[in-house]
């Protein structure tokens, strides 16, 4: 399975990338990690006229953690983000989700921004962006714009990025100490795409009860599904029963599709099981963060 021919450019600067993309318009694809793109090219399911390789733009590989933010450049590899202690402390959900992304060898090359831009509804990071309302900076020769969270996604494998544009960074706000997160999924094999997955974020009040809670679902809809269940959980503590009830509610709102790996009904069941698990785990994560802040 060999790719069809394409023109190849490898600019060494941001402006070079933008110029190349502008010139090629909708006939170009961006090559970052390539772990999702190259199989499509090899199977000839995609045959762009131009491939713009962005791996040699030095500033694109920057992973920047400040007091307030984690800023991820477009060629930062999954594994680097996963290994970054500072990133993990600032936004633990990133590492929690990344532990499910493929296998380490794929993570060595695949990029987190690329994965987000790929907009795969089965992608863990897709759900993380939606849940935490991460900000995607999209640039072109015309200028730059920012799109937040779920607004970034249009449909399966479709984001708001237009021809001539490229995502040049994704920014996550540092999580407050009283916010705990978790990511859980069920997959057929280790490292496979999830049959269903849930990311959860729980914020505690001063009495360490649940103040707010949100979840996002992946592999369940055409884009990540975000559900705010604060109303159902406000004031609850470690009661498994309330998390289960919240999970039941979440499951009742979704209509997943079936495929060769799992039926729709089973996926719905997984949403219920996993949401309860994720909420409980996020709650416990919040407690431990509050109890031993760094």
């Amino acid at each position, binding site marked *: *399975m*060999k*790719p*069809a*021919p*394409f*023109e*190849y450019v*490898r600019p060494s600067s941001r402006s070079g990338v933008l110029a190349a993309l502008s010139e090629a318009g909708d006939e170009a694809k961006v*090559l970052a990690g*390539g*772990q999702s793109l*190259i*199989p499509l*090219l*090899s*199977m000839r399911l995609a045959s762009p006229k131009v*491939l713009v*390789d962005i*791996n040699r733009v030095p500033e694109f590989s920057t992973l920047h953690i400040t007091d307030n933010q984690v800023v991820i450049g477009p060629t930062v590899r999954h*594994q680097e983000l996963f290994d970054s202690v500072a990133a993990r402390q600032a936004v633990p959900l990133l590492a929690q989700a990344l532990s499910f992304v*493929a*296998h*380490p*060898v*794929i993570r*060595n*090359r695949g990029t987190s921004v690329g994965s987000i831009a790929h907009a795969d509804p089965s992608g863990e990071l897709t759900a993380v962006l939606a849940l935490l309302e991460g900000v995607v900076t999209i640039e072109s020769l015309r200028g730059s714009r920012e799109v937040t969270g779920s607004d970034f996604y249009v449909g399966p494998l479709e984001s708001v990025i237009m021809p001539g544009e490229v995502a040049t960074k994704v920014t996550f706000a540092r999580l407050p100490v009283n916010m705990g997160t978790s990511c859980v999924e069920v997959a057929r094999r*280790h*490292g496979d795409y999830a049959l269903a997955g849930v990311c959860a974020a729980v914020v505690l009040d001063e009495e360490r009860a649940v103040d707010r809670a949100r979840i996002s679902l992946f592999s369940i809809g055409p884009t990540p599904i975000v559900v705010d269940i604060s109303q159902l959980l406000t004031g609850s503590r470690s009661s498994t029963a309330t998390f289960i009830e919240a999970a039941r509610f979440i499951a009742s709102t979704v209509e997943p599709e079936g495929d060769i790996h799992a039926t729709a009904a089973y996926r719905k069941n997984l949403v219920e099981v996993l949401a309860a698990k994720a909420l409980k785990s996020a709650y416990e994560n919040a407690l431990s963060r509050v109890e031993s802040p760094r």
Partner: protein
Amino acid sequence: MSESLFEVQVMVNGLLRSGQVPARRLLSDFLRHDLELTGTHVGCEHGVCGACTILLNGKAVRSCLLFAVSVDGQEIVTVEGLVNQDGSLGSVQQAFQDSHGLQCGFCTPGFITTISAFLDENPDPTVDEAREAIAGNLCRCTGYQNIIKSVMRAAEIRRATDFSGSGIVTA
């Protein structure tokens, strides 16, 4: 209507190698056919089986999911480059022999590079960590039992030889 060719220069197993290839030439094909280093194998060309795994700047990656042009100027180590300076089998290679970690041998180079990089970072793994480390590579012959043993044996060999570094030799 011929394709443009790009000059690619890479350090492979410690030697500077070069070629002129179209942009779409996969790194796996560049290594195997342009450089005639056929130790790296191709099992699926969609990144799942791991037989094509090589070390790029020390990190294990799938060579079927890279274009040769993308690695211009970088450093690659293939299974051929993991022998010792004196030509004897490298620690992971020796471990595979000692532990009957291969049968048909087709998936083996991808395991060897993967494990080599893994042990560089984790010299003293548990059996579970060893299993996890190889969980991205497919083998149809061994049922993985002896590959896991090979990881543990390689760690043992490295400890015994007071190992330091990844054993890359000029091939």
